[in-house]
């Protein structure tokens, strides 16, 4: 078994062995670590560093309550980091969602239209919010890691 070191280590160890058979040292299958913003959003980056998947954290969905409506951004929309790009509505409160990174919206989670509650039940997987195509990794690198985020999400 190769020794996995570096920033991929934690993410790599977290991968279930079963779905990969022998753990393949294949860059294409490694997801970079999940990062966070102080607006309680998460970001994961594709291995080629080009597409960021974003969503709201478990802390955020709990604070909101039952989500009844999600306003998702249009595909093709250019966004700058911190731009409001949509909203999530619960208990008659519409809370803005912000772009954690600059880039272009390449996909929005259409499932949220019919099933907005996915944001509550599966905030990191089925309840993903949008995908942004980014040009550099600089903004991503500056986001909060899990430890730093957990310190603010109490």
């Amino acid at each position, binding site marked *: 078994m190769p020794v996995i070191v570096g920033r991929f280590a934690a993410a790599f160890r977290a991968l279930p062995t079963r779905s990969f058979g022998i753990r393949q040292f294949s860059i294409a299958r490694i997801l970079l670590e999940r990062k966070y913003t102080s*607006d309680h959003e998460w970001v994961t980056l594709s291995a080629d560093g080009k597409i960021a998947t974003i969503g709201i954290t478990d802390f955020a969905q*709990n*604070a*909101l*309550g*039952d989500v009844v*409506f999600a*306003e998702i951004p249009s595909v093709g929309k250019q966004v700058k980091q911190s731009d*409001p790009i949509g*909203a999530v*509505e*619960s*208990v*008659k*409160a*519409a*809370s*803005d969602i*912000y772009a954690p990174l600059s880039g272009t919206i390449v996909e929005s989670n259409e499932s949220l239209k019919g099933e907005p509650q996915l944001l509550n039940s599966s905030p990191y997987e089925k309840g993903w919010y949008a995908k942004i195509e980014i040009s550099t990794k600089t903004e991503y690198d500056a986001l909060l890691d899990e430890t730093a985020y957990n310190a603010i999400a109490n």
Partner: protein
Amino acid sequence: MGRSIPFVFLKPSPSPYAPVLYAQRMLVERMPRRECVLFLEHIPTYTAGRRVRGDPDGLAERAKALGAEYYEIQRGGQVTFHGPGQLVGYPIINLKEQGISVRDYVRKLQHLLIAAIQNFDIKSHTGACNETGVWVEDRKVAAIGVHVSRYITSHGFALNCNPDLSWYNHIIPCGITDKSVTSLTVERQRSDPRAPPITTHDSLPHVIEAFSDTFNVNLVNGNDEHDELSSFLEQTMASQPK
């Protein structure tokens, strides 16, 4: 009691919608400090929350024919009505400073309205079936619709004191088809038809007290013309871009 927050009751009353909407935006932008609460009545206005776009029911046209305005805005919730006789409250507060979640904020708004209404010996409650708002039995007496932008709240609540309820006949309020809308005056006059109406000015002191208790703050009257909030509002609404 915690910190002091100024409130104003906007005059002259009733207020048009657009300048106050603009003022709220400016108040949100000057945060995270300088919380405040606006109390007011609006001229007859129908508003639609974020889910409703493109005026699917032709409400803008019908509103105009009725002498009302129509706005699609950023708050949660669906379609509702604002008008004279309805006490509207727009708390601009910092949820992060207060340590309150969005969900808890809405709960507190409901709670304070129920407490205020109790002063008139009217028993109200939060909605059944996850319907946000305040109800007397199955009749809705107060609506809630909030916008949260980086922990700063805007929009808020609307308590029917003695509005002309026929304005509601032209919409499906909050998208709810099988329940009716009521007012404090209608509820009071159920038990005593000769009782005087309950006006927004009758309700305001109770709402102020309930707000202070619920949020553990000291609401102070900023209607003094030398007060910073009043001046800011006056300048902002006068300079609203057309």
